[in-house]
């Protein structure tokens, strides 16, 4: 019982830690790609603590404040459903399908909070975020279905177990894995899919009115978000991992490639982004799905 509670406390902290390190690396990687020296490695911690310790915080209403909290709670919930080596706490209570919808709680909370600001930039940002979500959801569900059919289970832990000994989905279903990468990348909202927050157009979109501790919580949520998306990708396609170290290495590898991609792209218009997702990733994912069905 005590160990369960301990694990229950540890898992979110672990996810937070991983997400935090990724953000740290992100700033540094970006700087190095741009041939800059870049900020100190622990700059995100400074940023976060500074935000949390702001003397003045404003709120546009209860929902405005609850938004980040719901978002973070949703993200923490999702973390429990992703198998981490040795720490599979709740994976039996909900499967991959449940996870897909649990992940939506975070977006919903954020959208509610942002909506309450009545700021046009925020509303446009949410409109774009939801549209983009609709966009990448189509290839996402197709590859999720192909993975489910491949392993005849919707239970994530079983999917991970089935990929043991190097039988990664990446090798058995390479097309799905490629699409999965693109979709995860889109879900993280990096270039060219950063139309949601596009600072030059809509002033960071949904976050426009957020500052101080609210913004701090949203940053924490973003760290969780990065963790969830990449961990899910690793679990689905890279065979999970047998220990935390390999898990971290795999995640970092994926994240590293993503950050490199981030630097080379420009920005999609929102409808172009949706069209993109509904065109090539969908077609490739469908081909992969048909391969699974025929097999």
């Amino acid at each position: 019982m005590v160990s369960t509670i301990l694990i229950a406390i540890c898992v979110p902290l672990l996810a937070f830690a991983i997400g935090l390190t990724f953000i740290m690396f992100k700033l540094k990687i970006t700087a190095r790609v741009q041939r800059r020296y870049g900020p100190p490695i622990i700059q995100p911690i400074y940023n976060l603590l500074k935000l949390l310790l702001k003397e003045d915080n404003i709120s546009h209403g209860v929902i405005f404040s609850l938004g980040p909290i719901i978002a973070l709670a949703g993200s923490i919930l999702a973390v429990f459903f992703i198998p981490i080596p040795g720490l599979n706490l709740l994976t039996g209570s909900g499967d991959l399908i449940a996870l897909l919808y649990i992940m939506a709680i975070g977006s919903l909370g954020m959208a509610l909070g942002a909506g309450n600001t009545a700021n046009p930039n925020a509303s446009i940002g949410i409109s774009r975020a939801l549209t983009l979500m609709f966009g990448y959801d189509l290839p996402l569900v197709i590859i999720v279905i192909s993975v489910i059919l491949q392993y005849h289970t919707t239970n994530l832990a079983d999917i991970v177990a089935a990929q043991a000994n190097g039988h990664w989905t990446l090798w058995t279903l390479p097309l799905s894995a490629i699409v999965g990468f693109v979709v995860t990348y889109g879900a993280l909202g990096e270039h060219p899919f950063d139309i949601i927050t596009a600072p030059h157009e809509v002033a960071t979109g949904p976050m426009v009115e957020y500052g101080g501790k609210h913004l701090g919580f949203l940053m924490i949520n973003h760290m969780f978000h990065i963790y969830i998306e990449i961990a899910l990708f690793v679990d689905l396609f890279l065979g999970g991992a047998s220990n935390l170290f390999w898990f971290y290495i795999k995640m970092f590898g994926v994240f590293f490639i993503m950050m490199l991609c981030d630097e080379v792209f420009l920005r999609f218009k929102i409808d172009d982004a949706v069209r993109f997702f509904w065109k090539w990733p969908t077609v490739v994912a469908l081909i992969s799905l048909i391969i699974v069905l025929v097999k």
Partner: protein
Amino acid sequence: MEKMTQDQVRTIANMLRKRSLWMIHYCTGCGAMELPPTMTSRYDMSRLGLAPFVTSRQADILLITGYLNVKTLRRVITVYEQMLDPKYVIGFGSCALNGGVYWDSYAVIKQLDRYIPADLYIAGCMPRPEAIITAFQDLMDLIDSGKADGYKRYKRDLAYYKENQRKVLG
């Protein structure tokens, strides 16, 4: 005891604040031209934890880069008032100091300090990126020592500032 904790917290907070300064720049004049070199790889101000931000709620520093006139002053004040404490203002270039080359224009606000409290001014027309970075470092020192108290002054002398603002804006 409680006061001591608060002081400690403030000290830590100031330490953190000076390492993470986000700025919103109000680009009206030519001074803004000097910011891109400062941000990009040549001078790379992110080394100091500085980063450009776009909304008043998220920013810590309001950078007034150039002259202000009646119309822009109104917006600058709105932005300043929307920023969250603690917040700092930097007057950038001689325009913000005394009107610069527009010193005799009827439409230009000559003295920023009469309307919002500036913590620091950067002289020059234009100030070089080196000057800008030096200024930021000075601001960090001021924050660390707790002397960057423009937002407190604004609250304290609100009547004075409002009176000045009203005179100009009507």
